[in-house]
């Protein structure tokens, strides 16, 4: 690799001696596809012309190298078949080439035959139209009674029953209505039973009444008692109201004041107070859970409802 290797190249993708180009290509630092092979040949031929003598050895070397480069480039242009073809021995590759040529040759001959055939059939005229509409399969019906048809029609002709939309317009009575009512009841009586008082009302009314009850309890106007969950709620006048005067009447949950009336620590604004004597024989853990459920979640929702109905 003397004369050829020192051949200086000035290509778009590479500038330097031919030797270096080969090294870079073999190290795969250059893509063969980027190299203009024709430019290399031109450079070599120009060099030959300058020398004015035919160096057969250099020419031979150059031919071998440029052929190898061309093969590299050609393979890179067909990446899919590269692996397949690269594995082939030269004899196998020649065989494959011959097979493909033969295949194409046969198809070319077949195309020639078709062209001849077409020319021969040029005077055959025939109708080409859209495909005829296929007859629809006949649908057989069971024997029908006209009276039955009339009855079916009559059924359809009847106006549909009026659909009640009553449930769509759910109306909440104002909480204030129940506030007044409970205050009035407590003016007459020391205590009353909540369930007995609202038992005759609708579900929605009962719910609003309960909100009113909570509101009154929050303001300290009443005291609530419930022996156990789901047992009747007893409403009574409070024994003492040390904090009622300062309690805000708004919706924000008031700070839990010490409930001096029954001597038990208050758990929250809406908690039911349970005298120690009536304490159910439940584990402390269970009690805490149950209390949490009854106080926390409804309190959030209740304050929202109050805000809306106010």
């Amino acid at each position, binding site marked *: 690799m003397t004369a050829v290797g020192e051949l200086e190249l000035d290509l778009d993708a590479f500038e330097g001696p031919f030797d270096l180009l080969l090294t870079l290509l073999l190290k795969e630092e250059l893509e063969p596809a980027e190299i203009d092979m024709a430019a290399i040949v031109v450079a070599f031929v120009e060099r030959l012309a300058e020398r004015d003598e035919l160096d057969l050895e250099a020419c031979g070397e150059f031919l071998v190298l440029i052929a190898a480069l061309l093969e590299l480039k050609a393979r890179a242009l067909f990446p899919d078949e590269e692996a397949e073809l690269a594995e082939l021995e030269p004899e196998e590759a020649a065989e494959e080439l011959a097979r493909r040529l033969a295949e194409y040759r046969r*198809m070319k001959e*077949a195309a020639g035959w*078709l*062209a001849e*055939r077409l020319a021969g059939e040029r*005077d*055959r*005229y025939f*109708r080409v139209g859209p495909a005829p509409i296929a007859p629809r399969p006949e649908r057989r019906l069971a024997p029908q009674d006209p009276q039955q048809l009339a009855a079916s029609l009559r059924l359809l002709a009847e106006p549909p029953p009026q659909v009640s939309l009553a449930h769509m317009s759910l109306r909440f009575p104002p909480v204030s209505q129940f506030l007044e009512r409970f205050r009035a009841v407590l003016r007459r009586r020391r205590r009353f039973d909540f369930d007995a008082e609202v038992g005759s009302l609708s579900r929605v009314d009962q719910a609003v009444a309960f909100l009113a009850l909570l509101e009154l309890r929050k303001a300290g106007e009443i005291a609530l008692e419930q022996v156990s969950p789901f047992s009747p709620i007893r409403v009574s006048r409070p024994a003492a109201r040390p904090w009622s005067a300062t309690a805000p009447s708004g919706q924000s949950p008031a700070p839990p004041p010490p409930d001096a009336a029954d001597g038990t620590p208050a758990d929250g604004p809406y908690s039911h107070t349970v005298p120690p004597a009536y304490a159910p024989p439940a584990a402390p853990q269970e009690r805490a859970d149950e209390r949490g459920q009854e106080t926390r979640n409804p309190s959030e929702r209740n304050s929202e409802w109050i805000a809306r109905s106010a």
Partner: protein
Amino acid sequence: MDRPLRLITANPVDQLARTLEALLVVASAPLSIEELAQAANDDPERIALALGLLSDRFREGRSGIVLEHVAGGYAYRASREAAEACGRLFERPVERGLSQAALETLSIVAYLGPCSRPEVARIRGVAADSAVAGLLERGLIAEAGRDDGAGGAVRYRTTPLFERVFGLESAAALPRLDDLGETAADIRERLHSVAVGKTA
């Protein structure tokens, strides 16, 4: 040649032949014996017999309408002697401008089909997209499923119209590939002789 059947005027086959005539004149594509048998509500063997009768009645030199066995069925066409007159009024648009590439693609699909565009490209060595599109538009080939595997290429096959345009009774009427020109062995020999000539 008069068949003995035609001598009997009230022959039931003659009556069947008239029914087939009517069906064939309405049809725009070749009708198979099975289709004719179903429409005429008759036996396929008697249909074949009646078609023989009609083929004799409608043949070149005897009638302007010719009954031909084409594309797996039977169809009427104009007689060849009327081709010139037909050509003044009608054209055969299907074959106008069928390029060499289109014909090669068509023969690959006809012989190796159903086959996909990549297969055609592999044999011809160049992309077959426009040739396939042109043949599809002419109705000479049609889609026929996909290659196996996910995202397989669309496969194509020739249509009955292809057989009709080229006057083939069926796809089997194509000549055997072996009868057409060089085989792989011939080419190998030629390659070998070139190689020997070079080294010599």
